[in-house]
């Protein structure tokens, strides 16, 4: 069901927003241009452990990302797939990001994959990019914000790494090739 909601929800948004911002084609083309250049930057940056790419060549608004757990943290050596969806008024609104691979983490909803990260909500700014979001997510893995947990259980046992690791591995599913 998660899958369906994520793919169905955004189009309703896109249909609402452009009316408020003005000429549809202008906006679409400028967003496309922005996304293309972000993709180019991301491809050329070669930051280790983070990567993303459009899901298909027909739609530049729907991306798949890959995040590797930062080395030296409890998440080290593991990989997660995330789904990134850009709204039609991007970058004035943040992209919607969810974990496709279940991620046992204080700030991630284990069922829906929803993420609680300030820059993806109220702290969003147009100067952020896919790359900065991915980097933030990567660092979030190692340094959770236990003050506003989406997964209270995880937040509770964060201080006990052995228990946490057990829970993490219980939920983790390796990415199928």
């Amino acid at each position, binding site marked *: 069901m998660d899958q369906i909601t994520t793919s169905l929800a955004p189009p309703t948004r896109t249909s609402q927003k452009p009316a408020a911002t003005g000429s549809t084609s202008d906006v679409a083309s400028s967003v496309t241009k922005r996304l293309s250049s972000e*993709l180019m930057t991301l491809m050329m940056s070669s930051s280790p452990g983070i*990567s993303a790419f459009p899901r298909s060549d027909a739609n530049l608004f729907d991306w798949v990302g890959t995040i590797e757990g930062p080395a030296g943290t409890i998440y080290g050596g593991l990989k997660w797939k995330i789904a990134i969806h850009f709204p039609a008024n991007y970058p004035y609104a943040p992209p919607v990001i969810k974990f496709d691979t279940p991620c046992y983490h204080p700030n991630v909803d284990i069922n829906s994959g929803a993420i609680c990260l300030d820059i993806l909500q109220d702290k969003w700014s147009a100067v952020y990019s896919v790359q900065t979001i991915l980097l933030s997510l990567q660092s979030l893995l190692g340094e959770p914000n236990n003050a506003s947990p989406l997964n209270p259980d995880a937040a509770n046992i964060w201080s006990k790494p052995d228990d946490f690791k057990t829970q993490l591995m219980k939920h983790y599913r390796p990415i199928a090739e």
Partner: protein
Amino acid sequence: MSAPPLYQQVAVQWSNAFLHLNRDEPGISGLISFAEAWRLIKDFLRPRDLSSPKRESDFNMATIRAAAEIITQCEMLLVLQDDFMDAVRIHLHLITQDIVQLMQQYEASSDAQHVAKLVARLSEWYNAWIPLEDLGESMLNAYNLAFQTHVYSVLPSSFTRGFRALVTLTFNLAQESTGAEWLFTIFPKPNNPSVRIDKPLWDAFHLLGLSERYDSLISSVCYEYVEAYIVKTCAGKWDEPKLNTIRDWMVNRIVPWMLLPFAREAKTAEDAKSMLQGVGSRLDFHVCKTLADLRTNEIFDIIVDYPDSTNALKDLKECLARVDQRSHLVQTLRKANKRRLLHPGADTKDILAQYVSIIRCLRMVDPPGVLLFKVADPIRQYLRSRPDTIRCIVASLVGDGESGDSLVDENEPIQPLQQLQAEDYSDPDWEPEPIDAGPDFRTSKPSDVISTLVSIYDSKELFVKELQVLLAQRLLTISDGNYDRERRNIEILKIRFGEAALQVCEVMLRDMTDSRRTDQHVQAQKSTVLHPTIISKHFWPALQSTVFKMPGQFKQLQEIYAKEYTTFKPDKRLLWLPHLGTVKLDVELDDRTVSADVTPLEAAFVELFSSKDTWTVTELLAEVGNVDRTAALKAISTWLNLGVLKEVAMDQYKLLNVAEADVYGSGSRLPAPAPAEDELPPVVTMQQQQAEQMQVFWKFIEGMLTNLGQLSLDRIQGMLKFAPGYDRNVDQLAVFMEAARREGLVTVRDGLWRLNK
């Protein structure tokens, strides 16, 4: 009893026979005269041995004829013929002896003389035994048959060889009457000077049926003679038309010769003409074939010699119209090209030149261009694989040939590039494709050479890009501000490639002139020794990005200039590319002043020495930025040679404020450094650009395979549209992926590609 008794039948037969032989003569006088005639004829016809002493000829021809008359009247000719033939057969062994003996001599010596003797001897035998004409044709035929059958059955196979030699001899006899004088002792020259001297020989051949039996052999001797003549007179001579000369020669020398072997029975010239027609046209075909073969084998060199070999090509064209050797020509030329042209040892320039010659030559031989299409294909493919082909073509486009001979004919009018056009069937002059055109043959209307060259590549964009690179190189080397030549070139190229394609070049050229104007303006505000060329970054091909900074005074100069420039053009900013400049420098030292034209790096180094006397290479490099160490050493060596610096320790240099006495003597200075190879293109070549581009595309492929798992080639191709400037087709992508697989970056299974982990 129905049948008469036997004796009665015998009696009837007897009386009939008697009446028949006796004719209506009284008594038995008829019978007696017949018996007399029979004896006489038989004696006359008896085959005699030529070697036995000749009997006095006691035959009275009149009585012989009378006797023949009687035999004919008695209808006994057939009986006589059988009788005669039996006698001939019995005596044939005499001939066999002669044949065996003479042929043995020939085989031992290989001298055609013996064959001639044999022919003469055989005619003697033949004439000696020939039956009387009055005895009728049937007897003559039977005799001929028996005689010839026997002779042919006895003649050894070596006779053909001898006969061939004998016939070959007649060519020279018929023409210059030199050669074997012995022939005339065997076959005396005819008394009548208007008769050909070899006529007796040919008569003997005819008599013995040899010319008929060895008809094809005589023809082949003739062919060989003609072939030898053609090869002798035409091989390697391409500057004059040969076909007509040969045809004249045929008419003057070969046709008269042919009269005897092939038109013997001709009574009039008309007769002879019609008799020679068949053999003559076959011979003409043979001439064309021989010449075509010869020229085909020489074709590569003929093309090399073009345009001096134009006449040879015209001959070839005429010959090819008569004999179908086109595929042979194509094969030969392709083979020659492969062996002599399309190998790593040949210069691209030379290959192009030869290709252009091939185009011109084959157009002449075959205007529709089928031959050219077939021959050109491998050349074009090979040229496509050469990295510097485009550069060579472009260089020749702008007439940059160092040797001076441009591929383009100066007289050829400049015209726009021609695109391949679909066939226009409404054209009243439309012609179907030639019959030997392949399925992928494209009707190329005779277009100009440059169009053909440009069409080696699929798009002319490649050329335009390379043109820009070339133009950039040339513009940057011009120091006297004279851009007329470049302007002219660009105007020419505009005609070929169209205005739009050359817009960028226009901008580049305008940059140069604008720079001068800007410079004049800045100089007017604040006079300075710095004269930069200001180029628009977006319109120029990628220049090798500079990495070093100019120190000291130079830096100040640059800053001052930049400030003035910004005042002049507030919306623009200068980005210095110091390595492209030159510096005219006076180095003032304590005891002397050294003047030199140096590269900016050299100038930068000497500038640094003005602040401190001793530097190590590493220190110098740290000051100017990231410069290649070899380049730095080269720059230092310039000053070493000028005696400004001195190496005091390993990698450590000291400024010589006072000139040092040259300890080694002035002659031992290092030779002036050879001009460095890397001086030429400061512009990134197309090839490097492509490699860089491929790097970008690879990042994209890596990105998509990381996130999307395994993908098919088509999906990768589709996804790559996100990569800016991606213009490869799926085949090129396949090649690229295959290369990545070999490097172990990706794996493929069932057509799906994935990253190798």
